[in-house]
Structures are given as structure tokens and as C-alpha cells.
């Protein structure tokens, strides 16, 4: 197998007109597409136990607590309460599971070193991040919406009369698609934070802080001077946003209806922009 080495006699830029490599594979080479990246990321997300666990817990909590609340409220006096809002408690807990998965989708690649293998297969980092975001967001949105639909259907049949408000069309839409979008966006925000921090525990902690801290801080804020801050913290906290989408905000002021969704969408876009910027700059 000894062959004399040929000198690269192409001057200062030896790759110009690069010598043809001797081996050719029978597998044809085409341009890899975004669709290939999506297919790959879908395989990745469905073949991990952490996906099954986090989404399983989410479904269990949203549906289980939703049904529990519905059965407790059934036949009781609840004047002025929108029937579908009984799903709120389950969703609040279930969203934490979705956040965890959102972080893990990207941070587990960094903690295991898988990201290096991923990026050798797909050198466009933006494409990898975009594919991850699309696959995760779709999965989280579909599953959360289905769970919410189930709970809403049970709520509307079990909780009625006794002054309970019968759900309108827009309430139906907000309690299913609206909540599904909000929770999936929360997960996407977690994914962006995970991509920036590259550390599972750190990113999950940061996201828990984002979700829970404003409301907790507001609880312990006393005094007139802090009143405005306290109100803002409550109005823009994640639990209050979920409640507002269900039509049961803690305060009468503040964003209501679909507005909390647009606010979160804006925040998520900014975080994703940050994630795209750093992922393209950093070494892995």
C-alpha cells in the first residue's frame, strides 16, 4: 500500500482545484435540507425517556388535577365562575414539566457531548436550533392542547348551573388552543434559556424563577411605596397570565384575554434571538 507522496504543487493555496479523492461512496450526496434536520430532531426527542417522563407527568397532572377540580366543584355554588377555568390548577403545575423538557432538549446535548456529534452531522447551528425549536414547540403545543380540550370538555359538562357562567366560543378557544400555545411558548422560552446557559440545572432553576418568583415576591411586599411594583409583579406573573387566559385574573387590571399570550411571544422571540446569536458564536 506504499505510494510515493505527491507534493502539493499548486502554489500558496493547495486546495485550488483540489485533487480528486480516490474513494467514492455509492451513497449519493445531495444538499441536506431543513426537513432532514426536522426528521433527525423528531427521532431524537421521541427516543429519550426524559421526553416520556416529562410529557407523561404533564398529561397526568393537567388531566388528573383538572378532573379532580371538576368533580369537587360539580354541583357547588360558584357564582360568576367561568366553567372552563377549573383547568387552571392542573395547567399551572403541568407547565413546569413542559419547561423542564424545553431546557433538556438542548442542555442535555451539551451535558452529554452529543452536541458535537449533532453539529458534525449538521454544521449549520441555526438550522439545528430551529429544528429543535419547531419539533419541541409542535409536540408541546399538540399534547397540551389535547389535554386541555379533554379537561375543558369534562368541565363544561360537570360544572354548570349554580351561577356558573356557561363557556362562550372565545372562552373555549382560549382554554384549549390559547393555553396550549402559552404553555408551549413557555417551553420554547425554556429551550432558548437552555441554549444560552447550556446547563440543565441552571436553566431549569432560572425558568422556575421566571415563573414563580414575581408572584412570590409580590406576596411579601408590604407598604404603600411598593404598591405599584407589587401590582405589576402580579399582573405580569406567569400564573396570573394563565389565570387571565382562563378569564379569572387575580386583579381586575392588567393584561387579559389573549394579551398575555402576545406578551410571552414577544419575550420568547427576544430570548430565541439571543440563543441564535450565542450558539453561532461559541465553540462547542
Amino acid at each position: 500500500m506504499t505510494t510515493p507522496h505527491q507534493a502539493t504543487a499548486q502554489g500558496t493555496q493547495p486546495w485550488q482545484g483540489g485533487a480528486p479523492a480516490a474513494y467514492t461512496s455509492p451513497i449519493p450526496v445531495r444538499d441536506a435540507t431543513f426537513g432532514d434536520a426536522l426528521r433527525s430532531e423528531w427521532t431524537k426527542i421521541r427516543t429519550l425517556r426524559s421526553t416520556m417522563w416529562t410529557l407523561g407527568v404533564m398529561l397526568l397532572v393537567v388531566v388528573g388535577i383538572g378532573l379532580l377540580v371538576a368533580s369537587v366543584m360539580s354541583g357547588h355554588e360558584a357564582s360568576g365562575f367561568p366553567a372552563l377555568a377549573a383547568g387552571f390548577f392542573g395547567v399551572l403545575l403541568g407547565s413546569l414539566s413542559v419547561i423542564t423538557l424545553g431546557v433538556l432538549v438542548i442542555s442535555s446535548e451539551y451535558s452529554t457531548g452529543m452536541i458535537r456529534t449533532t453539529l458534525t452531522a449538521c454544521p449549520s447551528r441555526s438550522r439545528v436550533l430551529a429544528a429543535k425549536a419547531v419539533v419541541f414547540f409542535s409536540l408541546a403545543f399538540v399534547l397540551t392542547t389535547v389535554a386541555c380540550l379533554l379537561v375543558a370538555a369534562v368541565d363544561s359538562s360537570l360544572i354548570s348551573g349554580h351561577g356558573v357562567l356557561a363557556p362562550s366560543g372565545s372562552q373555549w378557544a382560549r382554554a384549549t388552543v390559547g393555553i396550549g400555545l402559552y404553555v408551549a411558548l413557555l417551553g420554547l422560552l425554556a429551550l432558548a434559556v437552555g441554549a444560552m446557559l447550556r446547563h440543565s440545572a441552571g436553566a431549569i432553576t432560572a425558568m422556575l424563577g421566571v415563573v414563580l418568583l414575581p408572584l412570590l415576591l409580590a406576596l411579601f411586599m408590604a407598604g404603600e411605596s411598593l404598591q405599584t411594583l407589587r401590582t405589576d409583579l402580579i399582573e405580569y406573573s406567569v400564573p396570573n397570565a394563565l389565570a387571565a387566559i382562563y378569564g379569572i385574573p387575580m386583579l381586575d387590571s392588567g393584561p387579559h384575554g389573549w394579551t398575555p399570550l402576545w406578551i410571552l411571544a414577544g419575550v420568547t422571540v427576544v430570548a430565541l434571538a439571543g440563543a441564535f446569536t450565542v450558539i453561532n458564536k461559541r465553540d462547542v
Partner: protein
Amino acid sequence: MIELQGLTKRFGEKVAVDHLTFTVRPGIVTGFLGPNGAGKSTTMRMMLGLDNPTAGDVRIDGKRYAELKEPLKEIGALLDAQAVHGGRTAYNHLLCLAQANRIPRSRVGEVLEAVGLTPVARKRPKGFSLGMGQRLGIAAALLGDPRILMFDEPVNGLDPEGIRWIRNLMQSLAAQGRTVFVSSHLMSEMALTAEHLVVIGQGKLLADTSMADFIARNSRSFVRVRTPEPERMRDVLAAAGIEARTAGDGSFEVTGSTAADLGELAARERLVLHELSPQQASLEEAFMGLTAQAVEYHAREAGEPPTPTAGAPVEQAPAWGEQWRREHGPERSGDGEGV
């Protein structure tokens, strides 16, 4: 073909890779040798577009890595066995990589079979031994049937059978006309597999030569002569104009003369010889001589000088591998010479 042009990587003040320029040619195994911390892995990561070079350029068959259409079909890399999600089964790990580059699903089974992992295809790599992890990494490298293969320390953690398997694999891949680039910190390993050699130390290129040239130029051969009358021996050698130096144990290391000539000379002078043996300093020593000045982390024993003297003979440089040499004796002849 991989071409590096003035490739440089700086981490803050520290220069990890310093203006590397060399070419990895197809059809042969090119060894990439250097002590730990020499910048081998950083260089390989830059070749794959994982790290951004501070300066310089890498071309894979004339293109930058990011410009490759379906990279796995052009270059396969074993970076380290840990670049795998431990919770995803071996089969699914390879499947998601295959899908990213539109490699037929059937290839997954083929490469698992090729590396001998078919029985554990549905197992999670979390429970794999180091050797199984290496095999999975090699399966991923082979997945796209690429023209270029790159292995970073492939024999790490493998048992002798696995090491032999890797050697044969690399040589058969090169024989098919592929470009094979393999890094190692073990000269003896390289001597058995590589035909061409690129040596770096502290990020700098120290040698870019064929293995045969490297051996011819760097392995010091001499004849060891031991006699109960060293003073007379010295005079006889001096009178004959033969260069010799005294080794630590009182024997002579004679260069520029053959054992046969020395034997006849001794017989003429009626000198008693207790030893007359041709010696060749091992490639490992040649490599250590080359990199002694460029080793970043020295393991020193008590009483040794803090820095190796420039230009000191190989045997006296307190370099990397010193302990190993002590245990195996100062000379090892014929070690891995048969390439």
C-alpha cells in the same frame, strides 16, 4: 484530502494551536502525534467547524466544513466516545444522525454489524464499556461511507483485541483510497499504523514527514560494547578513530561502526568482550526527543532539574514518559520498526 493553512487557535493568552500548515492525503493513514495538551483535539475540532479558528483556514476536499452538503457522507469523525447521549439506544443514536444527512436507514444496521455492536443495538450507551463506546463512535464515523475519516485517540480504553481491530480497520479504509487521519500520543501505536506522520508540540508543527523518513532520521543506532578493561578499550577505539561514549553503567555506546568490525578489532587487540550488541533507540525515544522541549506538563521526580536542558541527549531529558522508560529499560531495540 484535508488542508490546513496557518491554523491558529488562541484561548485568551494561551496559544493552543500555532500556525499549523499541513496536508492530509488520501490513500494513506496519517498519524497526528503529540503529547497530551499539544493541541491535537483542538485542531481536530477546528477541522470539523466545532471551534472557530483565531486565524487560518481548514479545507476538506477544497471546502470549508460548513459548506459541505451532507458532511457525514464526506467526512466521518470519532471525536471522543462521550459525544453520545447516554439515554438514547445505539440504534436510535445512529438513526437520528443518518436522518440528518439522508443516509439510508439500512446503513445503521450495517455499521452496527461492522463494529460488532449488533447485539446491543437496542441498549443505551449509558451502560457501555469504554471500548463499546469507542465502537459506537466509529460506527457513527462510518455511517455515511465517507471519503475522509478522522479518529481522535481511537485506541484509548480498548483491549488488545480491539486495538488490533482498529489498526486493521484504519489500514483497510486507507487501502480503499480514503483519507485516514488519526491522532495519538503513543508513538509505538503510530509506528504500527501510520504511513505519514505529523508531529505537533505546544500547538506548533514539529515534523511533517513519512514514517520511513522519520525512523531513518530520528532513530539513533549504535553498538553497545561491554568489557572488563574499559581503559584499554577507550584507547583502542580512540586509536582506530571510532567515536564512542561511555554509558552510565560503564559500557560503551559506539556509533559509526558495525558490531562485526568492533568484534574483529577487539579480537586483534585481544580484548575480552562481555557484550557486543547492535542497538536502536526506539521510535518512542525519538518522538520524546522531538517533543521534549514542547511538553506542557512534565511529571518530575525528586531531584530532577526543573527544566530540560536545550539540546540535551534524549536519554537525559526528564521528559514525558520518563517513568515508562525507566521501567522498560533505557534501550528497546527493534520496537515497531517493521512498518
